[in-house]
């Protein structure tokens, strides 16, 4: 990539990104900081497109901006209702500490930039290797092939990390609603009626697209999670008889399916995660479908932010959220 007519854009975009990150870190109002952080992530998705990484761009827009943004706003609301709203200002620095830290950080930047010159360049990196083996991977899109086949252990453990996150969150607390009451409006009802099927459809489309173009399980799962959250914010809730074992089974389903596919290898005399060649395509597709379902539920569970209580997600108007503090 050499500078072309887009050079101005390539100078402007990183500058705006740095400015947004700086403002997000230094504005004393935390709500503003979170909004700026969401804007930062959306523009970051643009930077990924510019760096020819459309898969990363989709994931950044859906997960980095969408899911993380929702998580931050939900957490901020809960924190402020528990500890009150307060401004956040930086610690007062002694001049010597400021100079020392500044010098160290700038020296680190210079060192990192300089060390990049020493990196060996490998034309195309691992790209040619991936292309050579693409036919054996069961899918036609290189990034999906790397994710689910060539470096399948990365993705397997990544799903394990997501599951552990939900387990950790469920250990910490019961679900505390962060909306005082569900959003209610006739317009929202109509919007949901139109939007939920569309979200379901686009999630399926992204999942199907992932086998030959940018897209895939994680992007599809975040769309599905968006639909679930929309329904949840509008007052829908999981029936009590579903929030026990069925919910837990659905949460681990993707991981278990992936694990089962992984140990087919050792059972048939191959390495772990080495799929039998005749089965590779149906196996990967099945794992992707179940992964999408589980990851969507996991992402939704992280936003709900606590183990399900099995009761109504919103307290009756007479007893406000204070009952949570008595425990």
């Amino acid at each position, binding site marked *: *990539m050499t*500078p072309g007519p887009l050079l101005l854009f390539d100078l402007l975009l990183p500058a705006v990104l740095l400015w947004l990150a700086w403002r997000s870190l230094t504005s004393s109002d935390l709500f503003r900081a979170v909004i700026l952080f969401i804007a930062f*992530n959306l523009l970051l998705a643009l930077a990924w497109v510019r760096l020819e990484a459309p898969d990363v761009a989709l994931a950044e827009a859906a997960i980095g901006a969408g899911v993380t943004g929702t998580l931050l706003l939900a957490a901020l609301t809960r924190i402020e209702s528990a500890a009150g709203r307060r401004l956040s*200002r930086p610690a007062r620095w002694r001049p010597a500490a400021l100079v020392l830290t500044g010098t160290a950080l700038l020296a*680190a*930047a210079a060192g990192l930039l300089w060390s990049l010159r020493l990196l060996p360049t490998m034309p195309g990196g691992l790209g040619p290797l991936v*292309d050579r083996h693409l036919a054996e991977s069961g899918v036609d899109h290189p990034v999906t092939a790397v994710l689910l086949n060539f470096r399948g252990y990365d993705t397997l453990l990544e799903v394990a*990390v997501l599951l552990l996150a939900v387990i950790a969150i469920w250990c910490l607390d019961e679900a505390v609603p962060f909306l005082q009451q569900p959003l209610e409006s006739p317009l929202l009802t109509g919007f949901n009626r139109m939007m939920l099927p569309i979200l379901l459809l686009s999630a399926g489309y992204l999942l199907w697209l992932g086998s030959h173009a940018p897209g895939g399980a994680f992007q599809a799962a975040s769309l599905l999670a968006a639909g679930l959250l929309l329904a949840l914010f509008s007052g829908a809730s999981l029936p009590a008889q579903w929030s026990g074992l069925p919910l837990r089974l659905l949460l681990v389903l993707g991981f278990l399916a992936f694990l089962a596919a992984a140990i087919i290898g050792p059972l048939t005399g191959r390495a772990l995660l080495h799929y039998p060649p005749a089965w590779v395509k149906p196996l990967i597709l099945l794992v992707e479908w179940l992964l999408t379902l589980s990851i969507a539920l996991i992402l939704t569970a992280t936003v709900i932010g606590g183990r399900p209580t099995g009761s109504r997600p919103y307290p009756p108007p007479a007893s406000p959220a204070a009952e949570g503090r008595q425990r």
Partner: protein
Amino acid sequence: MSVPLIYTAAGIFLFLLGTYGLVAYAHLLRKILAANIMGSGVFMAFIAVAGRTPGAPDPVPHAMVLTGIVVTVAFTSVALALAVRIARTSSRVHLSGRDEEQ
């Protein structure tokens, strides 16, 4: 000056900005924001370095960054749940031993 170099430099500076935010602020939510920005800087430098060489982009760093984004959301959700728990039990939003400024 080549395009990957610009984004690499931006990634490195994002990482340093995040480091500053992590150190300079006591509020836990701010620390989580800062850690996220550090992560974004690492991803950006990684993808930009992978894009230095001419030809089709290397899919392996892309897949690894995709994994990284999902792992980041996992750690963010746990960190936020911890921060909410701390706020609910102690009405503080910073770690003990440090004074919340104002």
